[in-house]
């Protein structure tokens, strides 16, 4: 009561007119980013955008299900497999778009703010490394966007007003130019050795070189078809392989370990997750786990889809990668009965063979432990074999790297003197990429850059069932309708044909 009377007295006779707004529960940016520790929080915020919802729920629709070898039970996902999707699809497309740009915005904030600072001579390398990491993450997101959507708006500074929030599209070539510039900066300024402790798994020089090599390889393919980039890819990936010890990269002896162990030497980049911390667990195992399978968590998986039997059968029986990639049989989590694909009512043909790369029996609903694999070292070997074939033909070196990957997986090796043509060898690599890297976010990028979209449509069971006929527009996804509606600079135009 005293407080009220005091308040009343003060206000009645001295006028309470101080209307400055006080901020209690939030941090104000005006006095932030002043130490390397502050600066690091700006980077962590970029990682946060890749958390639950993006790679486990949304991204698989755009990247995974259009693979030649995938069934899906879920109608909105089917629409990506059979290309009946529209720009109005609300579940996957807007999430990928929004979260990628959220990451880009946060990277722009970090770059813009930290470039202005100086933390002292002793901290200069650290400061530049933080900027480099933001640039690597920005390049990573633009690389995804340009491959998924083609020409997209390309903010490189954080907007502070409505006008800056609306940007027209940038050409594909210019986006790649920006990506290369960012990665070159990252390649120079990131730490040059494997990170440890609280920074374990975050990009280093080798990560930047790997991504730059991948970018060059992609530019050499469709839609740019920039042949000059193939030798650059060849050289850049070679740098990664030759200096792998520098960054702690290597091929593990066991394929299963490479898939299951977090932050192992083979992981070049992964989105790190933890079951134990709210909103930091992935729902990958839950969404994509087989029905009634405890590896999808304590209630079983939602079983959104799986692989075709043809794909399963295409592996050599000795190939350990087959059963790490998918689970043809597993136990019912309540009854303990063995469930086998197509032999049990729960596992119908058109639902596919459940994936087995992500599983977490301990998770509750959507909070899984597994880190999401984005880039693995074996991809570097396959990319190098591919680049070698493109630059020098199917040389022994090309066979050597391909066979290294196959042998580790338990598959037979190819005879280097097999006399395959360059085209035939290219096919071998293409197939190998599915065997080695399925469900690791390469599918749609590979079929697009290699001109395989039409072929994939002729194989993908959902597309076959729907009678989908290839159209050129299928080389890109439509930009989400919300962007078209809100961004006047797009003039209401989506990608051609969408």
């Amino acid at each position, binding site marked *: 009561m005293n407080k*009220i009377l005091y*308040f*009343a007295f003060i*206000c*009645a006779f001295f006028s*309470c007119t101080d*209307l*400055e*707004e*006080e*901020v209690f529960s*939030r941090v*104000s*940016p005006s006095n*932030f980013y002043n130490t390397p520790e502050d600066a690091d*929080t*700006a*980077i*962590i*915020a970029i990682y*946060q955008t890749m958390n639950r919802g993006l790679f486990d729920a949304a991204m698989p629709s755009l990247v995974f299900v259009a693979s030649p070898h995938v069934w899906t039970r879920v*109608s909105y996902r089917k629409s990506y497999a059979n290309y009946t999707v*529209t*720009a*109005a699809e609300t579940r996957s497309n807007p999430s990928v*778009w*929004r979260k990628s*740009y959220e990451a880009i915005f*946060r990277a722009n904030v970090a770059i813009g703010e930290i470039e202005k600072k100086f933390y002292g001579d002793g901290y200069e390398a650290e400061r530049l490394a933080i900027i480099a990491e933001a640039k690597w993450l920005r390049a990573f997101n633009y690389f995804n966007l340009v491959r998924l959507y083609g020409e997209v*708006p390309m*903010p490189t500074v*954080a907007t*502070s007003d*409505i006008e800056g*929030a*609306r*940007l027209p599209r940038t050409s594909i070539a210019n986006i790649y130019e920006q990506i290369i510039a960012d990665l070159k900066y990252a390649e120079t300024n990131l730490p040059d050795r494997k990170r440890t402790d*609280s920074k374990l798994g*975050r990009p280093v020089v080798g990560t930047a070189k790997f991504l730059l090599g991948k970018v060059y390889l992609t530019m050499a393919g469709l839609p740019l078809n920039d042949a000059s980039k193939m030798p650059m890819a060849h050289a850049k990936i070679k740098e990664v392989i030759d200096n792998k010890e520098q960054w702690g990269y290597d091929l593990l002896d066991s394929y299963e370990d490479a898939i299951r162990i977090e*932050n192992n030497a083979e992981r070049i980049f992964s989105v*790190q997750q*933890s079951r*134990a911390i709210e909103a*930091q667990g992935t729902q990958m195992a839950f969404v994509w786990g087989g029905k*009634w399978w405890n590896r999808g*968590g*304590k*209630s079983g998986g*939602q079983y959104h889809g799986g692989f075709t039997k043809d794909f399963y059968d295409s592996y050599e029986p000795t190939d350990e990668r087959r059963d790490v990639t998918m689970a043809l049989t597993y136990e019912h989590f309540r009854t303990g009965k063995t469930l086998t694909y197509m032999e*049990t*009512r729960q596992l119908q043909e058109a639902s596919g063979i459940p994936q087995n790369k992500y599983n977490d029996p301990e998770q*509750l609903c959507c909070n899984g432990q597994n880190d999401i694999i984005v880039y693995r070292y074996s991809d570097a070997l396959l990319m190098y074999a591919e680049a070698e074939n493109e630059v020098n033909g199917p040389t022994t070196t090309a066979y050597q790297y391909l066979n290294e990957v196959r042998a580790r997986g338990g598959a037979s090796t190819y005879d280097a003197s097999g006399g395959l043509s360059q085209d035939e060898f290219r096919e071998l690599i293409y197939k190998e990429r599915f065997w080695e890297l399925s469900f690791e976010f390469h599918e749609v990028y590979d079929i697009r850059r290699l001109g395989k979209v039409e072929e994939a449509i002729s194989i993908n069971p959902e597309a076959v069932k*729907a009678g989908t006929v290839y159209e050129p527009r299928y080389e890109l996804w439509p930009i989400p*309708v919300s*962007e078209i*509606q*809100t*961004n*006047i600079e*797009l003039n209401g135009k989506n990608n051609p044909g969408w």
Partner: protein
Amino acid sequence: MKKKEFLTRQRAKNGKRPYGAFMMLLFFALLLNAQNMYSQDKTITGTVIDEAGMPLPGASVIIKGTTIGTQTDFDGNYSLSVTNDSATLVFLYIGYTVIEQSVAGKSLINVTLKEDAESLDEVVVVGYGTQKRSDLTGSVASVTAKDIAVTPVVSFDLALQGRAAGVQITSNSAEPGGGTSISIRGSNSVLGNNEPLIVIDGYALPENVEATSGAEGHSQPTNALSFINPSDIESVDILKDASATAIYGSRGANGVIVITTKSGAEGKAKVSVFTETAITTIPPGFAELLDGPTFIRLKDENRALRGQDPIYNGETDEDGNYSPLPEEFGTTNWLDEILNHGIRKSATLTVSGGSKESSYFLSTNFLQNEGILKGTKYQRGNIRLNLKTKVSKRFSLNTQINYSRVKNQRSNAGNGVVVASGPVFNAYKANPTYGPNQQFNEEDGDGDISGEDGTLFQNPKLQLQNNDNGTWNEDIIINLRGKFTLLKGLDFNVTTGFKSKNSRREQYFPSISGQGERTNGKALYNMAGNVNMLVETFLKYNKSLGSRKSHKINLTGGYSFQDNTTRNLNTRVENFPTDALGTDAIGIGLEGYIPTSSKITKSIASFYFRSNYNYKSKYYATFTGRADGSTVFASNQKWGFFPSGAVGWTVSNEEFFQGISRVVSNLKFRASYGITGSQAIPPLRSLSILGPASAVINDQLQAGFAPSQLANANLEWEKTTQSDIGLDLAFFKGRIYSSMDYYLKTTNDLLMNFPLPNSSGFTSIISNTGSIENKGFEISLGAHIIQSRKFRWNTNINYSTNKNKILSLGPNDADIFGRPPSGNIVKLPSNILRVGEPFAALYGFEISGLIQESDFDADGNATIPLYGNDKTLGSWKFKDVDEDGIITAADRTIIGDPNPDFTFGWNNDFTYDNFSLNIFIQGVIGNDVMNVDRLFLASGRDIDNSLLSWYNNRYTATNQHNDARYPSVNQQGSLTPHSAIVEDGSYVRLKNVAFNYNVPLKGSNGIRSMRVSLTATNLLTFTNYSGNDPEVNVLGGRNRWERGIDYGSYPRAQTFTLGLNLGF
């Protein structure tokens, strides 16, 4: 009741509520008529006439100090027996001055009553003072205690429904204690509050704060106004136009509701006890659903359409599993499992009285209202103390204290989330072949534990039975108002007070419930607290000038400061070793999440003034202005000024009018114009701030911060400009009276979450952009139709229209989309804001019919664009609005208008002897409702149950038709808002029928009065709406603009109430 007291009280208030008072007086007059035959002694006769010499039929003649009296007949004659020669007769007639005459030595008393301009007037409570209704230049509607008392409600806002023109009240949820949306003259604001400012005894309430249900869906807040016991309210005045509301400046744009609570009167203590017992019953109007066998048959039918064999075939497979035939399945009627009749009990004890220096009014109330969903219940305890003290000749003090505690056991019905959907929606769609205690999905034919959308079977019965789901609210309001008389006519007023609210939301989902199963039990324990402090000082000055004091001036001016602090704490814990302790021991949960908390302050400082001038009660002028400064706006936009002006001309007071004043007793023109504001934004939005964005690296959580909003350095007030012209009319001394208003409101600088391209990294920014227009016409019309000795019939009707239109939505007028009806499955928005269209128009695809055989060419290729390549015959046929040959999001269009064409209320009071009957009819006409339930229940989804009406009429090979209400089976892919689920939501409701009997009491056994009442509420509803009740608004509450959506709404109970009112 002693007549003396009664009269004194009435006269003290001097016609404040003439009709009500008069009615009551008559009541007693009639009541006593019956008694006076026992005590005949001396008879007085006479005639009562008016100044023009015309007889006044129906005038009351009462013996002063007694309850004995009579009425004049048609010729103005009366006859009354008196026992005491020293008695005094009191002559009363509505609209005339009271006259007293001693009977000493007389047997004939003729009286001429003089018209009393004062008593024709109600007194209307306006901001910072009162005004006579006849002096008003603005538009103000009033509802009296009597109108509120007649409806047994939890909260007074529900009793206002249909009572005043221009005021539309929609119950957001029919759960006991459910919230309402109040809109006065349409909706002005997109972002925030369209609710009026509520002022209780001079205290402007802050925006409601309530603990939220956090991650468990957008479940609605409870009723924000139920902390006031409706029977403590004396009057409600609704300020509508700018002239009336501008004194509240930045908070006046949505209108102002001014509540005055009761106070004690001079005299001995009066005690009254008021008890109500009611039964809340399950309403009719639930559509029939499929029984078990039909449901199973439909599954096989669907299977057949997919080219699969029926599996309910009565055969045993190689594993020895028997598959039963459809007819072997039983049926659970899930609605029966969740609904029951409830009891409502209420008891109010009131003590009031006072001396010359001080008066008191003390009231306590306990209310318990069981809902018709099992286990839902609203409980309130409330105490109010109003004190008036005359400290000295110059200083008086007025104190109001109200404490209330509400416990609301809830159901989450209509919370609009499929994964966590409420029991009503679950009961509609639940598999009818499951037993009432079935916990999980069975592995039925295709092993579907869940639909492809991931929905689990949730047993609605167990959901209600097992889930703890409560909201607790504690409200305290203390308000002190002091008045010093400095000079004659000059008062200095100080108001100071505070309001505090503590709110708690506890939910526990046990491991056996649908929501708790995945997480092995889940508890939410959320708190919100709000402390609001107010201090105001203002001067009031009254002066009459000139010859015969023909110039009257009334000035008010002052300063106000209001400070508001809100705190929140939200916690969530999962994985409980036992379900036994629920939210009482969240610490035993094994998986706790980091709690979140916040503290936000907001202050408003204001200077205001008002001047009223009138010349000979003929010409009126009012000027009002308020300058408001608020913390929530950008640093260079803190202050806004809100002026208004109004003029009035009472033609009937002109000399030239006197000739017809016997017919037209009042004729007044009013016109007003002004600007009011709305600070519809949450705090901190003009600033750039960083939000937490932590992420895991190496299994450790690392701190991350990122800008969580785009700052807007120019954020300022919303401004609503309103013009109003009005006409007040009365005929035959007020026997028929009417008031009409036409208004035009334009809101500019609309505060909006302006959508940004997501490529900016944000989805929206709050900015001042856009404008909305509301215009409408209101009329209220009343009549004392029959005024005979024994029988009286008073009626009044109000009718209002409001047309709103969005004029602009910012620089490129991009559409603004509302929330989707459900968080995870019906994901496209159901409402839109689009330039040129009405506010919150319903939005979605247009269904032009059903796909027919004729829509395919000879090769089986579709000749029409298909939605999702669905070629099923009898599927919904989507209209290709943009005619580009394919169905895309661009084909969505406006498919309905949730705003009514007009609303009305019609009230009738019949009185016969000691009986009275109130019949109240209320209607909302011309609004559309989107019945999202039909997407699940009338679409052929075989994982959900369906409506029998759909089943019987559905499109099949043998029943081909084009009625989009009854598509064929297999519509799984079409869970999107569209026109086939939009229906006319018009309704006319017999809202209230109240029957009262005043028990005649003889002798003084201590009981002063006794009234028995029987009230039926929501007795009949006339509508073509196919859902249970057309008054729905599941997306209402929490200051959101979407409306007209039905989605598993809590059904509206019918209530039958027996009331007993005893006075001592």
